[in-house]
């Protein structure tokens, strides 16, 4: 009985494969990047900087969610979730997910260096950036098992170095880390700037 079930399991493993079993390496995500900030900042400027950055990089920016709530007397909690996508070539697209959440947020009036007054925000800020390279975003190669196998082979053995060395690299250094540096610059953080800004390339 045991041997029978054992045989059955092996047969099941070999013959009854799911699509996910042979679809490997369909996307290459970047490690998530975080920023945590407490102090005074200009929310409008930050929002516009992020939107402008993606516009310049030919991305389409979507607002997935915007949530505003006031859980206590210390200030508002606002959550912004953005998704920026760019179909770079026929075979792959870049997507960047941005989560921006504020805590204890309230308005303050600050005096700038030139003496003018400006309304800014004070509170805590939590930002998370997460990039992903998605291959075959239209799902053309998912129509049959043969094509899926072919796609898996293509990704794993033929264009693996291109994915890891070019597509992923460009997303990580020219988009995600650059945006990360831009946000730090707008917040005037001590760690502003990044040393990968001189990376070769035309964009």
């Amino acid at each position, binding site marked *: 009985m045991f041997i029978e079930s054992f045989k059955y399991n092996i047969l099941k493993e070999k013959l009854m494969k799911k699509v996910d079993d042979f679809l490997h390496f369909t996307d290459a995500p970047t490690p998530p990047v*975080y920023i945590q*900030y407490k*102090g005074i900042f200009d929310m409008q400027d930050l929002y516009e900087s992020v939107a402008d950055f993606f516009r310049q990089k030919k991305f389409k920016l979507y607002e997935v969610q915007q949530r505003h709530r006031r859980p206590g007397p210390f200030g508002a909690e606002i959550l912004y979730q953005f998704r920026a996508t760019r179909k770079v070539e026929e075979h792959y697209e870049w997507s960047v997910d941005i989560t921006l959440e504020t805590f204890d947020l309230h308005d303050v009036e600050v005096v700038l260096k030139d003496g003018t007054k400006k309304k800014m925000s004070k509170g805590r800020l939590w930002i998370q950036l997460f990039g992903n390279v998605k291959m075959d975003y239209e799902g053309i190669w998912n129509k049959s098992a043969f094509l899926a196998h072919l796609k898996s082979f293509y990704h794993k053995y033929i264009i693996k170095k291109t994915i890891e060395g070019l597509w992923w690299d460009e997303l990580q250094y020219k988009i995600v*880390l650059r945006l990360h540096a831009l946000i730090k610059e707008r917040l005037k953080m*001590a760690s502003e700037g990044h*040393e*990968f800004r001189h990376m070769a390339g035309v964009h």
Partner: protein
Amino acid sequence: MGNVKIIVDHDKMDYSGPLDVTELFKTVENFIFYMGYDKRQDKDFEQNTQNGKFVEWQISPWKWISDYARYIIKVRVIGYDILKTDVVSDGKKKKVDSGRVVIVIDGFVDYDLQNRWQDNPVLYFISQMYDKFIHKVYTERFEHMLVHDVNRLHDEIEKFLNIYRHYSVISHPA
């Protein structure tokens, strides 16, 4: 995550005095870029407190040395009570940061990241035998090279902070 081995455990520096925090981060980033590491930013936290800025910054850059192993250097910088102060440099007055900075460096070698040798106990046993006996010379050499990289980074930071460096560990790549 494959089989992570700690090679450098908490190489620590504690510094109080004037420094440029932004430049310190740039120095570390520049060094890892120069050494061919890929950047991974773990933490970038800043809080404005009554006594000054509190900064926590952590990166764990990695570098593939073969299909089987990669180096990870984790650098953690914690800055307490960082304030801007006026200093005179080359006859010119300029502003720099001042405060206490604690820097912790760890070095890891990550073996078999794709978990190809960890699916079952037999494969795991073979991989361990291979690492520790057959491939021992190479394994140790990988570890020496990582120690060398960490020492260089440590030295670079000491140079930046202008700490007395008479007793710096001198290492050579294996």
